[in-house]
């Protein structure tokens, strides 16, 4: 295979470079986990001693507890909303050629182009100006997260639908199924991996979101990353490392579940989602 013209030095350099990049990618995550046991409140390296007291402090903090609950609520609600809205939108884009399709696509993809801080501030102004009471409410945060996620979710779902043979659906229709019935019983089960990936990404985005959320929130509905950001603004002791280490554990658990549920299709769908 090396016949396709590759020097041995080039390959060795490429491998060494990749190793450096992987160390670079893992470093801040490893340091957070190690530092969560650092007895020094000033994060001095090497650790002055080992302790688990930062975990106790993080878990006992009322702000972090409330933030965790708010984050789960916001994540679940916005993911559900965006999947329910995104599935029919993706179906329209994947299965129909209609006038104005490119305009619809442009508006749909708009939130990807607009900086998140601008989206956050714009929604803040909208919520205030419309006197809707959405500012500082969970509904407002869920709506904000849905705006951010809809482009990604529809892209992944449309790519997923593109891989599903329309002939199966037509066969179901010919056999007497209603359009909705054919969709629910023939198409939807085949969208499993797309829905799982889109849903996981929507949840993770919502769970990590700071740049838009910080404009829409009041202390009572602060999500966990907002509480962490505000905490970091004042203190830098390893409490935040302990909490981060717990979140890293949850992330890997989610990653494992996602990979197990979708198998090899996940990367292909992500690549397709980005490329289109």
């Amino acid at each position, binding site marked *: 295979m090396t*016949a396709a*013209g*590759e*020097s041995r030095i*080039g390959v060795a350099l490429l491998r060494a*470079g*990749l190793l450096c990049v992987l160390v*670079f990618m893992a*470093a*801040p*995550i490893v340091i*957070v986990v190690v*530092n969560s046991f650092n007895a020094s409140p*000033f*994060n001095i*390296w090497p650790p002055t001693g080992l302790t688990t007291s930062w975990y106790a402090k993080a878990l006992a903090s009322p702000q972090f507890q409330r933030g965790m609950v708010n984050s789960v609520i916001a994540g679940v609600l916005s993911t559900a909303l965006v999947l329910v*809205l995104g599935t029919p*939108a993706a179906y329209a884009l994947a299965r*129909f050629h209609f006038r104005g*399709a490119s305009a*619809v696509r442009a*508006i*749909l993809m*708009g939130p990807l*182009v*607009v*900086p*998140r*801080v*601008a989206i956050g*501030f*714009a*929604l803040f*102004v*909208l919520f205030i*100006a419309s006197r809707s009471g959405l500012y500082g409410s969970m509904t407002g945060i869920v709506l904000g997260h*849905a*705006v951010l996620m*809809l482009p990604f979710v*529809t892209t992944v779902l449309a790519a997923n639908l593109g891989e599903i043979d329309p002939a199966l659906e037509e066969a179901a229709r010919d056999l007497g199924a209603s359009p909705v019935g054919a969709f629910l019983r023939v198409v939807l089960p085949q969208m499993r991996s797309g829905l799982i990936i889109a849903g996981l990404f929507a949840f*993770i985005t919502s769970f*990590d979101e*700071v*740049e838009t959320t910080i*404009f829409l929130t009041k202390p009572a509905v602060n999500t966990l990353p907002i509480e*962490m*950001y505000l905490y*970091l*603004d004042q203190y*830098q002791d390893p409490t*935040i490392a302990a909490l*981060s280490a717990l979140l*890293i554990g949850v*992330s890997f658990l989610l*990653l494992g579940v996602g990979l197990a549920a979708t198998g090899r299709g996940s*990367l292909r769908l*992500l*690549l397709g989602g*980005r*490329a289109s």
Partner: protein
Amino acid sequence: MSASTNTKPLLLLAPSALVVMAPFVASLVILAAYSVDYGPNGVGPDLTIWRNFLSDGYSWSVIATSLRLAASVTLITLLVAYPTACAILRIRNPLLSAIAYVILFSPLLMSVVVRSYGWLLLLADRGFVNSLLAASPFGLGPYRLIYNETGVVIALVHILLPFAVLPIIGALLQIPPIYREAAADLGAGPAAIVWKVTFPLSLPGVIVAAEIVFALAVSAFVTPSVLGGGRVLVLSRLVYENIGNVQWGLAAVQALILLAIAVGALLILERFNRSTFAKRAG
């Protein structure tokens, strides 16, 4: 017939249009209105806020910082991402390949706050990197790596690298291996194959990567705040501070300038993309 083919997709799109897209578009319209002092207590439309902001040297220094940060982050990220994508595709062992993918992409699952905090720990005056440098035979440092642009750039490259590698991998996978083999058969050396065959054909993926990375870097908020420690002032930071100062008109102007920079960069890169395609076709 044409009526029914048009109403069905519109009905399917209506829920997301009403719930998500309409508020999004409305919010941008109101943002523009606030920037010309057309808010509830405003007297507008007039361009005073725009004029004041654009005639202030301080504003331009913040815009320059935002642009400089985003440009250097984009350049460094692409220079790292391209060989990384080539290298990761070459791994033959499935287990090693899976490990590399997980290490490279799993940081995406973690909060930007967590990742920025990790870099704060690594780069602090008495942190890991400085202790490593001091322990080295040269006894280097300590260097000031946080609360300045250096730390912000390093952390942003880390955060944005996966976004750059993904489209480049996608582009590289689309090049049929037979092209490289043909070039080799015609006598091209390894360097010539990379430079004259692989790289030009993967350019669309590189441009998509540049678009994503620049857009995310220029509007980053958490990382410049955490690693800049209030000393690296970028546009997104000003927007946030001015909402606390109840300077909503000014914040609207800054948000719109941020938007204009993001859209402008996208248009320039898209144009570049099309011109390279045209060159190849012609």
